[in-house]
C-alpha cells in the first residue's frame, strides 16, 4: 500500500494581516456566545434576555461599573505579572499563592502598626507585599535555575501551601475574637483610598500596564527574557546568566502578584481572607495568554471577564439561573479563543485544492 497525501496538510504562518486576525478572534467570541446560549436554554432561560441582563447589570448603573472595575483590577494586575514569565517560557502558575502571600504581608503591617499614619503605613504594606510575593516566587525559581525542578508543578504546590499558611494565621495567631476564625477589619488608615468610587488600585495597575509594556519591549531585561524564551542555548552562548535571569524575572512576577494581593486585601476586602486571591491567579493565566502577552490587550480581556462575572452574579436572583453559569460561559469563551489561535498560526492545505486555504 502506498502512502496517500493527507487530506489536510499544515504549515506555520506569520503573515496574516492584523485585520484578519482580529476578525478570527471576534468570530471565536461570537461562536462562544452562541454556545453559551445553549447553556442558558438548558437552564430554562431565554438566552437573549439573559445576555441583555448581564450587560445591563454590569454596565447599566454606576455601582455595576464600579464592581466591574474592582473585579478587573486583580485579573489585569496578575496577568501583567505573569507576562514576563510566560515570555521566558517559565510557567509560573503560582500567582494564586503569591497573591496570598502579598496579602499576608500587607495584613501583618495593618495589624501590627497600630499608630502609624495612613501614607507611610500603606507604603509599608505595599512594599512588604512586594517583598513577600517575590520571595515566595523565588523558592521555585531557585530550584528551577539550580536543578531544573519542574516549575509548573512546583509553583502549583506553592499555591496551596500559601493558602494553608494564610488560613492558619487567620484562624490562629491573628484571629480577632476567639473562635471567630476571622481577623478584624483593617483600621481606616490601612485601607486604600478611593478614586471615582473604586480603590486606587485601578490607577496602580494602569501604571504597571504602561511600565510592563516598556519593560518587555524596550529594556535590556526584556530583551534577555525574549531570547531566553526562544532558546535557552542561544541565551547561554550569548553569555547571559540564565539562572540569574530566571530568578530575577520570577521575583519581579511574584512581587507584582504580591502587590495585587495587597490591593485586594486593603482595597477590596479591607481584611485578610484565606481565599483572598479567589481564583484570580488562575484566571489571570488565561487572560495573559489570550492577550498574547500584550499588556494593553490584557486590559480589554480582563474587563470582558469582569463584566461577565459581575453581570451573571445577578442572574441567580433575577432569573433563577445558578450562579455557576458564569464559570461555564467564561470557560467556553476561553476555550474558543484558545482554539481560534490555531487558524491564525497555521495554514491549512487541502489535498488537490492547492492554493485555497480555510480559516
Amino acid at each position: 500500500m502506498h502512502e496517500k497525501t493527507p487530506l489536510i496538510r499544515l504549515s506555520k504562518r506569520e503573515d496574516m494581516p492584523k485585520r484578519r486576525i482580529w476578525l478570527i478572534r471576534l468570530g471565536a467570541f461570537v461562536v462562544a456566545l452562541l454556545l453559551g446560549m445553549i447553556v442558558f436554554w438548558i437552564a430554562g432561560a431565554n438566552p437573549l434576555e439573559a445576555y441583555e441582563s448581564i450587560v445591563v447589570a454590569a454596565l447599566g448603573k454606576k455601582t455595576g461599573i464600579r464592581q466591574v472595575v474592582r473585579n478587573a483590577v486583580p485579573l489585569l494586575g496578575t496577568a501583567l505579572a505573569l507576562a514576563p514569565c510566560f515570555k521566558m517560557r517559565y510557567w509560573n502558575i503560582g500567582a494564586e499563592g503569591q497573591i496570598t502571600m502579598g496579602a499576608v504581608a500587607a495584613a501583618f503591617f495593618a495589624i501590627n502598626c497600630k499608630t502609624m499614619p495612613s501614607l507611610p503605613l500603606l507604603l509599608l504594606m505595599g512594599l512588604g507585599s512586594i517583598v513577600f510575593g517575590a520571595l515566595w516566587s523565588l523558592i521555585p525559581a531557585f530550584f528551577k535555575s539550580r536543578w531544573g525542578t519542574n516549575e509548573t508543578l512546583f509553583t502549583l504546590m506553592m499555591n496551596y501551601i500559601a493558602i494553608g499558611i494564610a488560613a492558619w494565621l487567620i484562624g490562629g495567631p491573628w484571629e480577632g475574637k476567639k473562635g471567630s476564625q476571622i481577623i478584624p477589619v483593617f483600621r481606616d488608615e490601612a485601607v486604600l483610598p478611593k478614586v471615582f468610587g473604586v480603590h486606587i488600585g485601578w490607577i496602580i495597575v494602569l501604571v504597571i500596564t504602561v511600565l510592563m509594556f516598556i519593560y518587555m519591549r524596550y529594556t535590556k531585561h526584556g530583551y534577555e527574557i525574549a531570547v531566553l524564551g526562544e532558546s535557552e542555548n542561544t541565551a547561554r552562548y550569548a553569555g547571559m546568566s540564565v539562572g540569574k535571569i530566571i530568578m530575577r524575572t520570577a521575583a519581579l512576577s511574584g512581587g507584582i502578584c504580591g502587590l495585587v494581593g495587597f490591593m485586594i486585601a486593603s482595597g477590596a476586602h479591607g481584611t485578610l481572607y484565606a481565599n483572598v486571591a479567589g481564583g484570580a491567579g488562575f484566571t489571570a493565566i488565561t487572560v495573559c495568554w489570550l492577550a498574547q502577552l500584550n499588556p494593553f490587550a490584557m486590559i480589554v480581556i480582563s474587563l470582558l471577564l469582569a463584566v461577565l462575572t459581575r453581570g451573571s452574579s445577578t442572574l441567580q436572583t433575577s432569573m433563577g439561573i445558578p450562579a455557576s453559569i458564569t464559570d461555564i460561559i467564561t470557560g467556553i469563551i476561553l476555550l474558543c479563543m484558545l482554539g481560534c489561535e490555531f487558524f491564525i498560526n497555521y495554514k491549512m492545505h487541502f489535498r488537490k485544492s492547492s492554493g485555497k486555504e480555510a480559516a
Partner: protein
Amino acid sequence: MMGTIDFIVALISAAVLNGAPLMFGTSGEILTQKSGNMNLGVEGLMFMGGAFGLLGAFAYGNAAGDSASGVVAVLISLLCSFAAGVAGALIFSFLTITLRANQNVTGLALTIFGTGAGQFVGELMRIRVGGNVAISNELKLAFSGSPFPAALQNIPVVGPLLFSYNVFVYLGVIMIIVMHRFLNKTRKGLYLRAVGESPATADAAGINVTRYRYIATVLGGGISAIGGMVYTMTIAGTVWNHTGLSGEGWVAVALVIFCLWKPINSLWGSVLFGALLILYIRLPIPFLPTQIYKVVPYIFTALVLIMVSIRQRREDQPPAALGTAYFREDR
C-alpha cells in the same frame, strides 16, 4: 493494646476510603501525562464526573422507583461520570493535540469550565427537585457498602482491612494493576511511553503520535472523572455539596508527581494521601495547626519534586515531552 489495633485498623480503612477517589483521579492523569499531555483540568473533570454520576443515579432511581437495582445504579453512575470525563478530555485533546493550543492554559480553562458545569448540574438538580437531591437508602448502600458477604467482613482485623470497602476501591485496585501491566509489559504501552518521552522519535518509528495522545488523554480523563463520582457517591454521601469536591482534583495532580508517574505507586500513594486528608481529625498533633496539617500533602509533593530533580535518576523523571505539543514540521 486492643484499643491501639482498633484505632490503626479504623485509620487505615478511613484512609483507603478517602484514597479511593484519588486512585481514579491520579491514575487517569498518569495515563494522560504518560502520553506527554499535561491536563491541568483534572479538577474540572472530577467535578463533572461527580455531578453527572449523581445525576445518572438520581434519574435512574426516579425512573425505576421501587424496582431499582443497586448494581444497575452503580453501572449507570460509572458510565455517566466516565462519559462526562471523556467529553471534557475530548475538548482538551482537540484543542491541544489538533489545534496545538498551550496545554497549561487549556487545562486551566477546562478546570474553570468543568467546575462550573459540575456546580451547574448539581445546583440545577437541587432547584428542580426543590431541596436536596435524595437517593433511596438501598441505592446508597450499593455505592457505599461492601460487595463481600458479612461473614468475611466480620473477621477481626482482616475483615475491615480487606473486605469492608465499597466496590470502587476494588475496581480501582484492579484498574491500577491493569494500567501498570499495560504501560510496562505491552507493546502498545511501550509505544505510549515513547510518545510521551520523544514524539519525534516515536513518529519516525511509525507510531501514530496523534492517535496515542488522543486515546490516552480521553481515557485518562474518563478515569479521572470516575474519581469525582466516587467522591460524591461515597464520601460526600450522595449529596451535591457546594464545596465538597473542591481541591480533590489538585490533590490528584500532586499525587501524580508524588507517584513519579508510575501507576503502581498510586496504590499506596492514594492511601497515604487519603490518610493525610483526614489525619488532622483522627490524629491531631500538638502544636501543629490543622490548617498546616491539611497542606502537608502539597509540602510532601514539593519535596519529592525537588529531590527527584536533584538526584536526576532517569526512571524517576517526568515524561520528557510533558506539556509540549507535537508538530511534525517543527524542527
